[in-house]
């Protein structure tokens, strides 16, 4: 029921208000004189309901304007002035005329219209007071205000009692007094004044004193036995009481506002600065999450520091291991700022772990040349996790020192700068990381395309090749070259270094081997030529290890040379042997030393002999104790699995390897090329 009522009054406020106003209007046109009590009571009810609905409507409408209390006050003031003018004019025109001129049509029309103007005005003014009351309140104070509303209503209706018995007026007086007391209490809720800017406070000070007086005069006119009082009182005694109460409310409220503002004036500037500090910090927080360019942020920080911390200049320097670099300046030249910074920090003995203040008297002469004389400088470190990455300076021409709050503000901005700097760094790192990952993708792609997709097959020579890339492309390369019907060339190589650079070298190596293998059929000669070619393009610190061999598929003769690569494993019967002919890596030295170091080796393969070429990704794989997988483990696995198919041997090696180095990421590419000679086929 109550909610329904609320709904009606809220949602259809305007319609209800208009409807009741029309009813009130018609009622008064039909019965210009409320000469019986019934008529008077009906009239009072209509007036009350009109006020009630209008109040609900206006209060919703004003709710949207709460952000500018001064506008609200100004509007209320204009209405108060309107009432004042109507009353004054009416008094001067009608003042002498007696009110017993009879009840003409125009007379009653005039008084009803006047009443509407008054109702509208006081409802608007009252709603304004309501908004001011609830403005910036932290607690729910609606009980206080609603109690007052109830007493307003009680005072309104107690007028009816007087109609029945003129001597029965003490309840009305009692309610009236209580309402005024409540008004006084509620008028003290003016905390919103504190949040005004200094300028607004001055403005409010003037307005409030004018309005307080205006409301006071209005009240006096309504209490006096003026013509206005008679017109309104005749129309509705309740309305008259309501008007006088609202006028009292205005007088008291604006009076209190005046004095409160007056007392707030001395702190206005400090409050302004605090408010600016807070809003600047908020802006900075936004900026930090949006802007990743530290330079831009540094500009903002120095500008804000200058403004908020009452300083004349501000600048920001970044400190790296070796040097101090100016990042941004405000209101000071780069040269000056640099000079002062070096003066203060150059010696290196002061590292200003927390904010420091320097009374700069002693070094004035040093800074004089630039035209900037600073007498007080605040230095705040940009600290992240106890590491100082730079300093924020705020400097003053004036003698007065930075107070505690100002120091805190400078430090706060320095902290923001520190966070922003860290952010920018992380952002850059993540971009770099992304770039590296893209690069690795490219490198992996190159490697995949370089390595042969199939292995050559022949009935006497069985071949299996296994390649497991490392996350960072390791630079392993292997390939097969069908040199003739009988001869098969193969290369297993490892380019030093990782990533895209080694992938490119790998591509070059492939090109060289591919073209030279067609011309030179001697492994040693071929490697010498490869070295000559590579040495020209290889960086000083890069090298390539390789084994190049040729197998004769007809007679099982293997010819190979080794250039720094891991040795070849030969598993013959139950014997396993590592064959490591001398030879230095490709790119380590020029001819003739390279050529003389190389030794060609020839092996006559026997039936079921297994030849294994591998990369150091296998032997140098590490376990959690940082131990190498080593040669012996590999030998054992091959020996134990020698009877199985080549693919199974590879699998066995990989299985053991992953068991050995579990919990340890694969560091280097793994290549395993296995040949098996089947004499009898």
């Amino acid at each position, binding site marked *: 029921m109550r909610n329904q009522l609320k709904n009606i009054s809220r949602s259809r406020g305007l319609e209800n208000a208009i409807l009741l106003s029309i009813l009130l209007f018609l009622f008064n046109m039909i019965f210009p004189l409320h000469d019986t009590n019934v008529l008077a009571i009906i009239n009072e009810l209509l007036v009350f309901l009109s006020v009630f609905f209008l109040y609900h409507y206006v209060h919703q409408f004003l709710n949207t304007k709460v952000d500018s209390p001064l506008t609200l006050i100004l509007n209320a003031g204009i209405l108060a002035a309107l009432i004042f003018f109507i009353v004054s004019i009416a008094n001067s025109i009608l003042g002498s005329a007696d009110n017993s001129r009879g009840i003409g049509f125009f007379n009653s029309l005039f008084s009803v219209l006047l009443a509407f103007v008054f109702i509208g005005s006081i409802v608007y003014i009252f709603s304004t007071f309501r908004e001011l009351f609830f403005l910036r309140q932290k607690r729910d104070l609606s009980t206080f205000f609603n109690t007052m509303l109830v007493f307003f209503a009680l005072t309104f209706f107690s007028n009816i009692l007087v109609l029945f018995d003129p001597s029965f007026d003490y309840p009305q007086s009692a309610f009236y007094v209580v309402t005024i007391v409540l008004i006084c209490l509620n008028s003290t809720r003016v905390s919103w004044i504190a949040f005004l800017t200094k300028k607004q406070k001055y403005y409010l000070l003037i307005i409030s004193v004018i309005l307080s007086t205006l409301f006071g005069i209005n009240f006096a006119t309504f209490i006096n036995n003026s013509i206005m009082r008679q017109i309104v009182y005749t129309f509705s005694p309740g309305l008259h009481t309501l008007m006088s109460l609202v006028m009292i409310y205005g007088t008291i409220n604006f009076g209190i506002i005046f004095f409160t503002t007056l007392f707030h004036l001395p702190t206005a500037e400090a409050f302004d600065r605090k408010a600016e500090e807070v809003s600047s910090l908020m802006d900075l927080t936004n900026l930090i999450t949006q802007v990743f360019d530290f330079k831009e942020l540094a500009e903002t920080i120095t500008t804000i520091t200058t403004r908020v911390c009452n300083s004349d200049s501000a600048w920001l320097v970044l400190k790296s291991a070796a040097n101090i670099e100016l990042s941004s300046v405000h209101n000071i030249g780069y040269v000056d700022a640099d000079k002062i910074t070096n003066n203060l920090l150059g010696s290196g003995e002061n590292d200003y772990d927390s904010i420091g203040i320097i009374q700069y008297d002693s070094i004035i002469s040093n800074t004089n040349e630039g035209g900037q004389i600073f007498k007080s400088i605040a230095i705040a470190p940009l600290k992240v996790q106890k590491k100082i990455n730079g300093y924020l300076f705020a400097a003053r021409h004036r003698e007065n020192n930075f107070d505690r709050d100002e120091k805190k503000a400078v430090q706060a901005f320095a902290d923001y700068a520190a966070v922003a700097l860290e952010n920018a760094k992380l952002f850059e790192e993540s971009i770099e990381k992304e770039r590296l990952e893209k690069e690795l993708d490219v490198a992996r792609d190159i490697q995949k395309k370089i390595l042969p997709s199939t292995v050559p097959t022949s009935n006497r020579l069985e071949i299996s090749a296994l390649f497991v890339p490392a996350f960072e492309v390791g630079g392993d390369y292997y390939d097969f070259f069908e040199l003739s019907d009988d001869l098969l060339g193969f290369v297993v190589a490892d380019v030093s270094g990782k990533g895209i650079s080694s992938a490119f070298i790998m591509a070059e190596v492939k090109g060289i081997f591919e073209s030279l293998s067609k011309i030179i059929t001697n492994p040693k000669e071929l490697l010498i030529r490869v070295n000559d070619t590579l040495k020209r393009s290889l960086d000083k610190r890069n090298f390539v290890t390789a084994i190049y061999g040729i197998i004769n598929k007809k007679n099982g003769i293997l010819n190979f040379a080794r250039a720094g690569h891991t040795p070849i494993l030969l598993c013959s019967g139950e014997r396993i042997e590592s064959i490591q002919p001398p030879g*230095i890596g490709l790119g380590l030295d020029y001819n003739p030393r390279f050529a003389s170091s190389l030794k060609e080796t020839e092996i006559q393969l026997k039936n079921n002999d297994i030849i294994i070429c591998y990369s150091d990704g296998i032997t140098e794989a590490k376990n959690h104790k940082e131990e190498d997988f080593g040669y012996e483990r590999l030998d054992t696995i091959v020996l134990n699995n020698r009877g199985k198919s080549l693919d199974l041997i590879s699998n066995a090696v990989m299985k053991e390897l992953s068991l050995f180095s579990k919990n340890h990421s694969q560091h280097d590419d793994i290549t395993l090329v296995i040949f098996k000679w089947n004499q009898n086929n």
Partner: protein
Amino acid sequence: MAEFNVNLRGVGSVSVIDVKGYLDAHTAPELENIFNKLLDERQFKVVVNFDELKYISSAGLGVFMAYVETMRENKGDIKFSNMKENVYNIFDLLGFPILYEFYKEEKEAVYKFGDQR
């Protein structure tokens, strides 16, 4: 993770670099800094003491390759000493003993520089 330490000291006219821990692509720049410093000071006679080195990667080897030419052009050299067997095997596999001088003791290596004088 893997740690690496490098220390430079002078023994007579010879500079001795002590390397310690894991020398790989990440730590190689530290060693390069030392070599750059030596070039700045025109110190071309270098002995690298591998006594406490646990592991060397191809990037670590690359550092010596990058500087040895300059040293030799200026009548200096890079000589290696006190190498553990596992580290020596890596050098050996690549054929470094053909190109560089390896010594068991640092003293020997330093002494060899004296010979050339």
